[in-house]
């Protein structure tokens, strides 16, 4: 075959954009964020201060951790509403076990296991029994929240072993431990998504489940793992939250799931599956946190905060959408 191998790429790029433009296009959301950040730094007093940056980072640390796994979940075309409840339940459970056994390690371990178990159940019901993910996790959201209330009797569970508090309150190199843990999560899950078989399979499953199955990817197993890990990380977030506020509270983290999902979608993770980047998710999480932080700094009325939050969310996805449309058309 004497095929003239002039242009190897898939197809002659119709309008091959120059490198920079393409780069800008791809990272438009990051640019939007940087612009927002710069604007706020100049216009809002105290915004660009070390203290505030640390505060901001802390405020998104829980969301950040779980957004990593939610990224996998959405990328595989799934959906998980139960994470907020898992966060609360894990915190309560951890506190209770520590009080009972006196061992922090046991408390943390039991809690992580419980989170993983909740995720596993979600995964099995969704992947094996093929029940709709929205409904399944809506149901487990209710049930796990109920378990948190029942276990604690509706009361905050204080921890007597004060060593527990160090988990979420230690400063390392001037940065609080929850922020470090979140950074580690970003790195680990970023690598997982891009470099591991598991990550690629996740994208494949989300991009085309039947093609993946036919190619021998164990779709069910992959989906179950995704939920399992998500449960465990949600539990981790719950443990750290409990440590930070020195007690396990059964009614914490309500509405957490929508925040996490918003952050992911803001970060360009497709709800139709198959598309996700860790940089996007990080930016999504940061935009959410920055907006809330700036509103508090600007002392915006609570009622108007609703408007601003909604408006920002809409604007960000709109800009992203317009950009993509341009690209596709």
């Amino acid at each position: 075959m004497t095929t003239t191998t002039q242009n190897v790429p898939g197809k002659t790029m119709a309008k091959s954009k120059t490198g920079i433009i393409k780069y800008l296009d791809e990272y438009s959301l990051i640019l939007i964020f940087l612009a927002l950040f710069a604007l706020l730094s100049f216009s809002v007093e105290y915004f660009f201060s070390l203290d505030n940056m640390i505060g901001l980072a802390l405020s998104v640390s829980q969301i950040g951790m779980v957004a990593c796994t939610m990224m996998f979940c959405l990328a595989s075309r799934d959906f998980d509403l139960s994470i907020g409840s898992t966060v609360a339940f894990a915190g309560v459970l951890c506190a209770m076990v520590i009080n009972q056994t006196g061992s922090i390690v046991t408390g943390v371990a039991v809690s992580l296991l419980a989170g993983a178990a909740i995720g596993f159940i979600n995964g099995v019901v969704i992947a094996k029994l093929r029940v709709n993910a929205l409904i399944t996790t809506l149901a487990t959201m209710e049930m796990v929240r109920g378990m948190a209330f029942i276990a604690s009797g509706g009361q905050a569970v204080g921890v007597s072993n004060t060593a527990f508090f160090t988990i979420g309150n230690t400063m390392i190199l001037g940065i609080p431990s929850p922020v470090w843990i979140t950074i580690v999560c970003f790195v680990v899950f970023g690598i997982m998504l891009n470099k591991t078989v598991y990550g690629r399979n996740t994208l494949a499953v989300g991009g085309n489940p039947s093609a993946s199955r036919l190619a021998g990817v164990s779709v069910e197993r992959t989906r179950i793992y995704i939920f399992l890990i998500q449960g465990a990380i949600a539990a981790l977030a719950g443990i750290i939250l409990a440590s930070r506020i020195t007690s396990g509270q059964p009614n914490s983290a309500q509405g957490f799931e929508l925040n996490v999902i918003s952050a992911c979608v803001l970060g360009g993770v497709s709800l139709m599956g198959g598309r996700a980047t860790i940089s996007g998710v990080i930016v999504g999480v940061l935009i959410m946190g920055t907006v809330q932080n700036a509103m508090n700094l600007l002392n915006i009325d609570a009622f108007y905060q609703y408007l601003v939050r909604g408006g920002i969310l809409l604007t960000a996805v709109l800009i992203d959408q317009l950009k993509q449309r341009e690209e596709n058309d």
Partner: protein
Amino acid sequence: DEIKIGFLVKQAEEPWFQDEWKFADQAAREKGFKLVKIGVPNGDKVLTAIDNLSAQHAQGFIICAPDVKLGSAIVAKAAQYKLKVMSVDDRLVDGAGKPIDSVPHMGISAYKIGEQVGSAMAQEMKKRGWKMSEVGAIRLSFDQLPTAKDRTDGAMAALVAAGFPKANFINAPQAKTDTENAFNAANVAITQNPKYKHWLAFGLNDEAVLGAVRAAEGRGVKSDSIIGIGIGGSQSAMNEFAKAGKTGFFGTVLISPKRHGYETTLNMYQWIKAGKSPDKLTLTTGMLMTRDNTAAVRKEMGL
């Protein structure tokens, strides 16, 4: 006929209401009547719950409504089914905002509790010898909830009355009523005001104040430079008092769930059974509970 009494509360998951229910149950056990407990987080649920009570042939109910302006609707609905009504905690008002006198009430106004918080903070400040100009007061607000607004407004009024400069109040709106959101809101407030040496924190409940205290501690503020006073005397507060070292969580205004739960139910029982209508208005008071007087206050409140 068996006597059956409903007890409807606005936030069934909250420890405070759980306690009220617990004591109401105690009354039911003692007197041998049936208590139906229903959570009514919004207006729609209130009406559904009253329908439900009527369907199961209850004779009366006690309610802490999610919004006091539901008063007219509740009274009308109760009259339709010939159910007796009492309100607890929050007093029902009519469309014009006037308290509805025909409904017996036991409780303490949200504003009043707030005032108690405020004056307790003023007192403690004086005791510690702080200069008021060096003190920042974080108001953890959740204005979406009318009760929350009343409570924090009360606290501010009492502080101002004690000579606290108005300029030193910092509004920190929580996105949700949990500790983490309070933490984040307070954190920003502290960042913005590096000038203050000492801090006050007050809000809707113990959980909110706890968040602010944790935030301040996290920023290196010494525990004895913080006075956080919560409301409710919940387990969150007890946990703080149980800790080995003093924390910035100075105290909490404890209201007696026993009186609110036990007495109202008993009154309703006697009203139904013997036709003895309860007092139109019983006002209870809160008590400041701190690390030092926990046991005593709880005992006095019947806990």
